[in-house]
Structure formats: C-alpha cells, structure tokens
C-alpha cells in the first residue's frame, strides 16, 4: 500500500493566530489527494482553518536511544524557566 500511497503527516491550525499542530497521519497518492484526505479525515468536526501535509519520509526524527544525552542535561537547570521572574501587575495576563 505504501508503494502507491505513501504516508503523510497532517498538521491542522484550528484558528488564525495559532500554530499548526500535528494531528496524525494518512495514506495518499500525492500531495493534492493528501490534502483532501486530511480534510476528510481530520476536519470533520470543524477543527481546522488551515491544513499542512508533509511526506513522512521528509521528517528527520531524533534517535530514542539518544534521549538521555539530548534531554536529561536540562533537568537540573530550573533557572531557565521564567517562573522566577515577577511579572508587574500592569502587564496583565501573559
């Protein structure tokens, strides 16, 4: 099946101003049909105002075996979180 209809990753933007978010994947013969299939599979309940499809083969993923060296070093650096800063009241909701 993947020979004639390769896998595509689907990203949907729910509203203007928000980012496209990964929602899943699907099979389609080309980018035009992939967009249509994304519309039919992932926006049936009014979820989207914009769709991106990307060939899954075009995505380079991090190696799960390298997770420790990639992500563990940040565990002891809580000062990188902005929670240590007092936000002036005038700023309001941020």
């Amino acid at each position, binding site marked *: *099946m993947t020979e004639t209809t390769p896998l595509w990753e689907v990203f949907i933007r729910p509203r203007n101003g928000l980012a496209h978010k990964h929602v899943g994947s*699907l099979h*389609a013969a080309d980018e*035009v*049909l992939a967009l*249509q*299939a994304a519309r*039919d*599979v992932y926006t*049936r309940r009014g979820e989207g105002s914009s769709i991106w499809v990307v060939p899954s083969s075009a995505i380079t993923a991090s190696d799960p075996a390298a997770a420790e060296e990639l992500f563990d070093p940040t565990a002891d650096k809580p000062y990188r979180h902005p929670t240590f800063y007092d936000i002036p009241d005038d700023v309001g909701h941020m």
Partner: protein
Amino acid sequence: MAHLALIELADDHLILGHRLSEWCGHAPMLEEDLALPNMALDLIGTARTLYDHAATLEDAGRSEDDLAFLRVEREYRNLLLVERPNGDFAQTMLRQLYFAAFMAPFWHAAQDSSDEVVRGVAGKASKEMAYHIRHAGEWVIRLGDGTEESAERMAEAVEELHRFTDELFESSPEAEATETAGVLPSRDRIRAAWDATIAEVFSQAALEVPEVYPQTGGRAGLHGECLGHLLAEMQYLQRAYPGATW
C-alpha cells in the same frame, strides 16, 4: 406546485447520498471510507431541508420522513444517473463528478432564488458541491491518466454513465413552473458550466466525451430495476416498524 419540483431535487440528493453511503465500510482505503460518507451526508442534509420545505408547501400533513420512506419507486422522481449502482470506484467517482458539476453552478445560481429556504440551502450546498467536484475530479484525472487498468475502468465508466447526463438539463413541467417563478434556476442554462467542468477534467484525464443515446425517464417515475433494490434497503426499517424513531 413548487413542492413537486423540490421533491424531484430532494430525491436526487437522497438517492445519491444513499448510494455513497453504501461504500461505508467497503471503500478501498480508510481515507476514502471517510470521504465518501462525508459526501453522502452533505447530500442527505440537503435532501432533508428540501423535503421538509416541500412538505410545508404541500401542506398535506406529510413529513420529510413520509416523503423519504413511504413513497414507492414510481413516485420517486430522481434522475436515472443518481440511482445507478456504485459499480467500481471509477464509476462512483465519475457519477459524483457528473452530478456535482451540475449542482455547483445550479446552487450558485439558486442563491438569487425568490424562496428564502432555497437561498439558504443554495449558500451551503454550492460550497459542498464545489468540494465534490474537486474530490471526484482529482480521482477521475488520476484514474483516467493512471495505470493501464485504471484508464480502462475509467473509460468504461464514461461509456456506462455518460448516456444518463442529458437528463440533468431537462426540466419537468413542475420544475419549469418554479423556474418561471424564480424559485429554482433554469436547468438548461447550467449546461455551459457543466460542459466546461467536464471538458477540463476529461482533458487532464485523457478521456473523451462520447457520442451517446441519452437515457431519460426518472422525472416521470420510470426507473431502472436498481432503484427498487435501493429503496427496499433504505425503507426497510420504516416499512417493517412503521413510525419507529430512535
């Protein structure tokens, strides 16, 4: 009289919607298994509004359900095109293209209807039909200009279905009356837009518009055998358990 023309139109949508729903659970891939019922629901939604409005205009105590489930074959006024069996995927997609290529400009023109309900339906349905053209058209192009087998099946679909397309442009006396009254657009005037859509898709699909002997009769209640089988399944529940609701 306007209600009779609305029932014809509603019948087209309900019967084609039911045909598409037959693919549910049987489509060649999950993506199409969702796309086909999506299109079916667009059509059935339009049918419901039209039946409901027709029932109101008729004012004879019938409901949309009565019109859909309690009429017999000869009382159905749908086009022969929409009752044709699904056949293979090529036939289903071509049938959808033929119908949507007519309905998109029809509903577009109906946005100027003198009837408020028709204007409401037209606004929603013209967008839905534009998508049906896009979806079915892309498939017709890919199958027509695809592998040897897909091209052969697409050409067979054209040979099988093209003879039913002339009926799209015929108006029954009831429809003509509503056209004169400005309720529905003149079906005959849709032909140029339909021809243009089909010519564009066919040129990309490497298909040719064939010379055919037109088949008509649906508007007079003269249907193929296939409609009876469709109604038997669609109406079974209301026939076996009259008045059943859920």
